[in-house]
C-alpha cells in the first residue's frame, strides 16, 4: 500500500516537472524578449519605431521604422485569410457533411499531408513556380511580391482552417440536422442554416488559428516576397515582421540587433493577442 502511494507521488512529481518545463520555456522567452526588446524601443522612441515608414538599418544615418513590416504582415495575413478562409470553410463543410466516405478519406489524407509539408518546400515551389507565373501574368518586373506571399500563405493556412472547422462541424448534434430535414429543408440548407451556425465559434477559432499561422510564417514568405523593406503594395517586393528579423540577424550588431529584438517583441505581442482571441472562441464553443 505504502509503496504504491510512493510510486503515485513520484509519478505525479515527474509529470508536474514536465508540465512546468513548458511553462518555464514560455516565461523565459517572454522575459528575454521583453528585456532585450525594450532598449531599442526606448532609444528609437516608441512612436518612431512603430510608425516610422523607413527602415535603413545599415545606412550611414540609420533609420528604424517598422511600419512597413507591420503593415506587410497585417496585409499579408488579411489577404491570406480572405482567400484561404472561403476555400477552407467550404472544403470543411463538404468534407464533414457531403463527401462520400471514400472521397473524404482521400481528401483528409491530402489535407494532413499539406499540413506536414515543411515551409521551406512551400517557399521553394513558390519561388520556382508561383513567382515567375505572377511576373508573366501581371506583367511586372519581379514576381516576388506581397501578392505571391499572400497566395503561398493562403495555401499554408488551409489545413488548420479545414481541420478545426471540420472538428466543429462534426460535433454539431445530429438531432439538429434531423430536425431541420424533418421540416422539409434540403441537406444543403440544413448544413448552412443549422450546422454552420451551431459550429460558428469553432469555425471562428479556425480562422484565428489561420491568422496565427500566417502572421508567424517566415521561411516561405521570405522566399517569395522579395524581402525588400518597402511600404506594402500588392505587386511590389515587401518584407514581413518575421523575415525582417530572420534576414538581418546573422550580421547585425549594436542598435540594429536590439531593434531586431524589438521587432520580435512586436510579433510576439501580435501572437499573444491572437492566442487570447483563440481562447475566447474555444471557450465559447465549449459553453
Amino acid at each position: 500500500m505504502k509503496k504504491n502511494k510512493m510510486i503515485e507521488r513520484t509519478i505525479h512529481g515527474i509529470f508536474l516537472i514536465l508540465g512546468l518545463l513548458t511553462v518555464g520555456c514560455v516565461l523565459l522567452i517572454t522575459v528575454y524578449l521583453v528585456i532585450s526588446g525594450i532598449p531599442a524601443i526606448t532609444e528609437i522612441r516608441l512612436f518612431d519605431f512603430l510608425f516610422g515608414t523607413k527602415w535603413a538599418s545599415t545606412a550611414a544615418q540609420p533609420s528604424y521604422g517598422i511600419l512597413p513590416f507591420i503593415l506587410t504582415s497585417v496585409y499579408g495575413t488579411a489577404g491570406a485569410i480572405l482567400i484561404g478562409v472561403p476555400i477552407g470553410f467550404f472544403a470543411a463543410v463538404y468534407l464533414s457533411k457531403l463527401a462520400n466516405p471514400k472521397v473524404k478519406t482521400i481528401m483528409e489524407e491530402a489535407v494532413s499531408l499539406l499540413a506536414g509539408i515543411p515551409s521551406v518546400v512551400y517557399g521553394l515551389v513558390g519561388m520556382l513556380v508561383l513567382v515567375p507565373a505572377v511576373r508573366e501574368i501581371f506583367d511586372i518586373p519581379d514576381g516576388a511580391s506581397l501578392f505571391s506571399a499572400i497566395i503561398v500563405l493562403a495555401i499554408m493556412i488551409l489545413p488548420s482552417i479545414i481541420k478545426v472547422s471540420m472538428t466543429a462541424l462534426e460535433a454539431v448534434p445530429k438531432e439538429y440536422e434531423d430536425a431541420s430535414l424533418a421540416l422539409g429543408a434540403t441537406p444543403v440548407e440544413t448544413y448552412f442554416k443549422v450546422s454552420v451556425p451551431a459550429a460558428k465559434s469553432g469555425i471562428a477559432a479556425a480562422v484565428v488559428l489561420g491568422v496565427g499561422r500566417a502572421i508567424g510564417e517566415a521561411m516561405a514568405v521570405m522566399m517569395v516576397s522579395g524581402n525588400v523593406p518597402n511600404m506594402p503594395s500588392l505587386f511590389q517586393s515587401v518584407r514581413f515582421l518575421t523575415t525582417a528579423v530572420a534576414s538581418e540577424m546573422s550580421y547585425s550588431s549594436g542598435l540594429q540587433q536590439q531593434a531586431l529584438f524589438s521587432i520580435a517583441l512586436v510579433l510576439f505581442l501580435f501572437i499573444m493577442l491572437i492566442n487570447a482571441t483563440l481562447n475566447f472562441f474555444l471557450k465559447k464553443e465549449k459553453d
Partner: protein
Amino acid sequence: MSDIMTAKNLNLWYGETHALKNVNITIPEKSITAFIGPSGCGKSTFLKTLNRMNDLIPSVKITGEVCYNGQNIYDNSVDVNELRREIGMVFQKPNPFPMSIYDNIAYGPRTHGIKSKVKLDEIVEQSLRDAAIWDEVKDRLKKNALGMSGGQQQRLCIARALAVKPKILLMDEPTSALDPISTSRIEELAIELKKCYTIVIVTHNMQQAVRISDNTAFFLLGELIEYGETEKLFSQPTDKRTEDYITGRFG
C-alpha cells in the same frame, strides 16, 4: 374517416438485418394511431419510413409501398423535402435549434420561402398557440430556446413542426425524456391537435396509447402483429403475443 397513409408489403433491411417484415397498415386521417411494442421491434423504424427519414442511413434498403394520399412516397418522382414538409416529425429527445424561440419556429417557414416579417410573426404566434405554449414564451421570444425546460422544449418542437402546416405529425416517443406533468401536457396537446392533424405516435408506454390513441398497432421483431381500435386491442386482443405483451408478460 378516410385513410391518409397506407403501407403495402413494406420490408426494410439495415444491411443484412431484416428490420421490418411485410408490414401492411392503413392510417385514418385526423386520428391518433399508436405504435407499441418492445425495444427493437421496429416501431420507430417504421415511423421513419413514413416521412423517409430512413433515407439518411446509408445501408437501408426498402421494398414495398408507402402511399400518402394515393401516391407512393418511395416513387422517384416524389420531392422528399416537400413530403417531409407535409409529414412532420417530433423526436424522442427534444431538439430545438440553438437559436431563439422565435427563430426556431420561423426556421421552417423561412426555409419554404416566407420572408415577410408580418407573416412570420403571425405563423410564430399561431404555431405557439396551437402547441399550447404561447402564454409561457410570448415575453421571451428572442431568448435562446435551449434555456427552456425539457417539457417546454418538446412543445416548442411540436410548434416548430406545426409552423410548416403539415398534414401528418409523426411523434417518436415524444414523452420518454419528460416528467409526468410535461407528459400529460403533451398528451392533452396531442388530443387537441387531432382535430386538425393526423397523428402517429410511437410509445413505450402502453397506458399512454390507451389514454390518447384511437387505433393501436403492436409490433414484434419487425412484424406488425395486431392492429385495430385501441379499446378493442387492449381489452380483447386476438393474438396471444399481443395479450402477453399488454398484460406485461414480456417487454
